[in-house]
């Protein structure tokens, strides 16, 4: 029993470990050799899958854009335009400024995150097993040393990168719309304010603390929500994959349910990005 438990947990562990790459004194090193490399480690599976999927997104939409006509659109163009219009409507409803960036940003986030989440629906063992096979036959590696995590959104690095990107834009928009002084005022004079100057000055540290927490909580919530949902979903897929034949109906049910989750999470990330940027661009706090 104990041995089996170890096998199961190591199986799960194997599934949840990224393929790593780092440079050491002896040159490029991979996976377990990178255990001590600290920050300068690259998750090459996350990078490859996310960039690959991003390129697929851009290729699909770019090809629709170059072929787009103002006349009667084809089915492919209709489909792409449906997505574009859906995102555009949400942006127009929520973001009341004029910005050339928000809508394409929202579109990129929605479709890219959706595609990355979609990788979750590929049965968990297919691609890692295939990668293990390739590693074994082509590179002579032990297949247990080949790691392959195909859902980039289950990597906190990716979700954090997206959230940080949005966070930088929030700060950028705040400063652009309200000016540095306005931004500092927003951080220091709310939510507690007083007509008495002295009291106001005394309140500044509290306000700053509260507002900073409120501000920083936004990228954290963005990054952790997406990561948490997808990581949990992936974990359940892995667990289901470990229960023998019973996995077939279970996997089906969880996959159907997960179709909702992956679209919803992509949508939520997009919507919150728009809402946060809208808040950053509006004066009334």
């Amino acid at each position, binding site marked *: 029993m104990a041995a089996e438990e170890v096998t199961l947990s190591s199986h799960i562990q194997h599934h949840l470990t990224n393929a790593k790459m780092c440079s050491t004194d002896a040159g490029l090193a991979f996976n377990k050799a990178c255990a001590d490399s600290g920050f300068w480690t690259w998750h090459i599976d*996350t990078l490859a899958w996310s960039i690959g999927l991003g390129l697929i997104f851009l290729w699909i*939409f770019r090809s629709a854009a170059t072929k787009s006509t103002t006349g009667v659109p084809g089915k492919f163009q209709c489909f792409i*335009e449906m997505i574009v219009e859906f995102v555009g409507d949400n942006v127009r409803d929520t973001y009341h400024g004029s910005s050339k*960036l928000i809508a394409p*940003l929202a579109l990129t986030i929605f479709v890219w995150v959706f595609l990355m989440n979609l990788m979750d629906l590929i049965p968990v063992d297919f691609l890692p097993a295939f990668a293990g096979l390739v590693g074994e036959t082509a590179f002579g590696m032990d297949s247990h040393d080949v790691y392959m995590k195909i859902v980039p959104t289950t990597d906190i690095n*990716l979700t954090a990168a997206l959230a940080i990107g949005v966070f930088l834009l929030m700060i950028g928009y705040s400063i652009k719309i309200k000016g540095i002084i306005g931004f500092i005022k927003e951080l220091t004079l709310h939510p507690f304010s007083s007509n008495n100057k002295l009291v106001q000055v005394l309140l500044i540290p509290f306000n700053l603390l509260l507002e900073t927490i409120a501000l920083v909580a936004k990228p954290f919530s963005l990054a952790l929500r997406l990561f948490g949902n997808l990581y949990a979903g992936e974990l359940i897929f892995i667990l289901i994959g470990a229960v023998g034949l019973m996995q077939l109906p279970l996997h089906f049910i969880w996959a159907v349910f997960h179709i909702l989750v992956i679209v919803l999470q992509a949508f939520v990330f997009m919507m919150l990005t728009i809402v946060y940027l809208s808040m950053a661009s509006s004066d009334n706090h």
Partner: protein
Amino acid sequence: MNLNATLIGELIAFTVFVLFCMKFVWPPLNGAIEARQKKIEDGLAASDKAEKELERVRLEAAEQLTEAKTQAADIIDQAKKRAALIVDEETTRGQQEREKIIAQGHSEVESERSRVTEDLRKQVATLAVVGAEKILEREINQAAHSDIVEKLVAEL
């Protein structure tokens, strides 16, 4: 939670994707949608206008049709009247002609009759004279007794 350099890589990838989308993907797609919306809007407006125009023209046509019908009825009326007039006139003229021809025939018959009567008288007179001559032989002088014969002839 093992944050590492992947974060930086993804941040760069994210930035590049968004910029590419902003430059080359969103504007043409959104532009196409908006242009088509404008086109459809214009088309609907034009069709509304055309419909109104059609209604107007239809009314105008109906008006003209009514007018034409009235005119046609007038013309037919006039023609009927004129036809009746012509028939009347012709009937009268025919009547007159007939009467004239009949009168002429009558007078011709009359004159022929009087001429024939005259001829007959003359021939009877001659016959009477010849007969008398034959009866009386030489005793009677044609010249001396012609007035008696004339009187006889006139009594016929």
